[in-house]
């Protein structure tokens, strides 16, 4: 040890290491803002809400969909006599019965007509309206939420996984990590790397966090083998962070783009979603009672089945809400109907409300943000209207 200290002194490194050392600085943080927890799951690829929460009580559904979404007679689980839950979400039925699962059947972002996944996801994550050019939009709505939160620290919010989460991009500090990332560096190698990264802001921040988190060894999340192992690992890691100082976590589940063979495609994706929610619940233990999970997708799919046993890009879609903190066991928001005049552009489910309004009310009730801050800063230009009261 002595020889290393001497070496460091002689190279002039000691001055820039101790004070700025990320591990040391993280110990001095103040307490986290409150005990409420939010998990946002982005479902990439456009989930078919009509198949996940099947409005089998509407006789038009059978005319529009010959093979898909056939309701309880095809194994779906009745929820309220009108909607039925896709059979692959059966593992979540106990949550519905316990009042910890709800859904909004017909929502969307303000994105309309072009039906591009990428623009749709960008708008969902940016949380902005159609008045702002998405290409110039660099921060996401979770980051703008952080900018409004007192007592913020970089651990407050985490994006988990190797995929890009624009929803958390922006100037407010937040962390990101993937459970796969692990390495072991000696202190000398670490200090040299810090020096090498010093003049490159991007690498300085990201590399600094990498070394900090790896040194703490918090990425060693082991999940049992199985097809949804990666998603369970993300959810387990998120739960561990949320049990500690983190209050907001976000990750994504892809694989929803069911243009063909929808039962298989959607079935696999729903298995992963169910596993993610149940892993969160299990991992959070007692903290589950203060947790709200919002699972959002960029848009819905066509009300009619297409020629290849699937559905194409649409407009209105569903949002899944789960958690011990929610007022579940119910359908939230209005149902537009499936008659020709009820549809958007004659082909899509009509969105009954801006999905951002639900997110905004959740943020108000979870973190106490003012309506002004939400309508002007977090979701600029949004009219929140009345409270849908998704929290218990």
């Amino acid at each position, binding site marked *: 040890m002595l020889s290393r200290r001497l070496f460091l002194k002689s*190279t002039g490194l000691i001055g820039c290491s101790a004070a700025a050392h990320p591990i040391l600085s993280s110990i001095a943080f103040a307490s986290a803002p409150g005990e409420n927890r939010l998990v946002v799951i982005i479902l*990439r*690829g456009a989930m078919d809400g009509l198949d996940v929460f099947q409005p089998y009580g509407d006789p038009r559904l059978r005319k529009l969909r*010959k093979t898909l979404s056939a309701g309880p007679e095809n194994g779906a689980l009745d929820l309220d006599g009108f909607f039925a839950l896709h059979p692959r979400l059966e593992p979540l039925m106990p949550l519905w019965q316990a009042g910890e699962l709800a859904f909004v059947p017909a929502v969307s972002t303000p994105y309309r*007509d*072009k*039906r*591009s*996944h*990428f*623009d749709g996801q960008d708008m969902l994550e940016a949380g902005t309206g159609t008045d702002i050019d998405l*290409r110039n939009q660099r921060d996401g709505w979770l980051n703008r939420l952080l900018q409004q939160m007192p007592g913020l620290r970089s651990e407050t919010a985490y994006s988990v996984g*190797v*995929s*890009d989460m624009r929803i958390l*991009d922006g100037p407010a500090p937040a*962390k*990101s*990590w*993937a459970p*796969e*990332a*692990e*390495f*072991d*560096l*000696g202190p*000398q*190698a670490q200090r*040299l*790397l810090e*020096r*090498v*990264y*010093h*003049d*490159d802001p*991007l*690498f300085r921040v*990201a*590399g600094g*966090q*990498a*070394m900090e*988190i*790896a040194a703490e060894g918090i990425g060693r999340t082991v999940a049992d083998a199985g097809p949804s192992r990666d998603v369970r690992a993300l959810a387990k890691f998120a739960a561990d962070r949320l049990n500690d100082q983190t209050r907001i976590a976000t990750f994504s589940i*892809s694989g929803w*783009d069911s*243009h*063909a063979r929808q039962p298989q495609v959607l079935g696999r994706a729903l298995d992963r979603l169910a596993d993610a929610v149940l892993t969160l619940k299990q991992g959070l233990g007692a903290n589950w009672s203060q947790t709200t999970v919002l699972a959002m997708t960029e848009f819905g799919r066509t009300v009619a*089945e*297409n*020629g*290849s*046993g*699937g559905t*194409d*890009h649409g407009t209105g879609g569903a949002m899944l809400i789960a958690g011990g903190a929610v007022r579940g066991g119910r359908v939230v928001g209005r149902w537009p109907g499936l008659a020709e005049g009820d549809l958007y*552009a004659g082909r899509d489910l009509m969105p009954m409300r801006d999905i951002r309004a639900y997110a905004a009310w959740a943020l108000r009730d979870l973190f106490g943000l003012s309506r002004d801050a939400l309508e002007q800063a977090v979701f600029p230009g949004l009219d929140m209207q009345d409270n849908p009261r998704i929290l218990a």
Partner: protein
Amino acid sequence: MNFNPDIAAIRLGYGLSARVPPPQTADAFLRSVALSVPDDHAVSMDHVRAEQTMLSDLNSLRKKDPEAASVKEIRQQQRQMRIQSAEAVRHRFARAAGDPGGFGERLVQFWADHFTVSGGSPYHDLMAAAFVDEAIRPHLQGSFAQLMFAAETHPRMVTYLDQDRSFGPHSWLARRRKGRDLGLNENLAREMIELHSLGADAAYSQKDVRQLAKLLTGLSFHLRRDGNFRPVMAEPGAETVLGQQYGGDRPASLDDIRAVIKDLAAHPATSRHLARKLAVHFVADDPPQSLVDRLDATYRETGGNLPSLYAALLDGPELWRHFRQKVRQPFDFLVAALRALGLDQQRVLDLPMRQVNARLIRPLTNMGQDWAMPRGPDGWPEAAESWATPQGIALRIDWAMRQPRVLVPKLPDPRDFLQAALGETASEALKWAVPRAESAREGLMIVLASADFNRR
């Protein structure tokens, strides 16, 4: 500004090689793109069809009579196909590692990403490899319209974007099989406009997508049927896409599809979209307008001649001025590391498959670039922030600590390695840090994990 072979190889290729020097003039650099044509190891759809037909025959034999084909034979065939697709990946690494300038191989990567298809099963992995060898490599030096036609009509694109499941609502087949409710699938039509040609910002409507989807019907793929056009699936009558009418006066054929692709390729929005995309990929996430304008003008003046676009990238000051504004994607990072470590094409081909999996293919997945499995048809993200994330950097540090000593018999002196990897471009901080590492292993790690090496 003067041509700098090292910077050209780092920015337009996969970095410097410890074995092969890059081409020394701009002309030689551009000419080297010709090296990236299909070679003896190219995967063909004929081959993929034969392998998959064998597998499918074995499966149906066994369905009829469990004695006729054993589970072992089926597994053996599946294994065979998995090995072949892993060999194709190894070959991609090997060609990129061995190419002197690397520009041709980067262009293969760029266009294969522009026209994203995915793998998944061993069958689809092999098809995706055939897509690169049949649709991309032969058309690197022609016009964009030729490349686009080859890409859109290739069996892997047709199946990836569900075109093989799209039936003209009034086609012969749909009328004959009324009960099955065969209809349109818009997937390929939408991505052709939004991603492959005009771009999402351009002026087009859902109606154009719908009309193009109708026009594309007939383009299909079936394992046991030759050809990629089935008139029985085609919607009869004319379609109007972006104000231009196609077909109608004669039976539907691939010619109508060729005509609409030619027009989409010639559209000014396509020129702008591709100009910007090339500039973003090769020069800067937020590219200088002068470069985008020059590429756009070149595209329009030459009718989308690809070699002219490549030359235009090298023409002005932007390539040299914006050095290190891009971050290497995981595949680029791994290939650049192989090159700096002195692994040439043959030495990568000689790597046992177990090593290829453990040192290259699995790390790619962990670093967020699962081979042939991008998140969606828009391909891999470009922004530096997408790759230089804490977890992304952690995985590169981890790779740099563990893998070099397994890939080469003896680790080079870190100072020599720094020179081999970055030439005269290394920063003072890196030159200062590398000799101070505690071991050769850590010295190499610092080079490979540095911002200098991870940017281009």
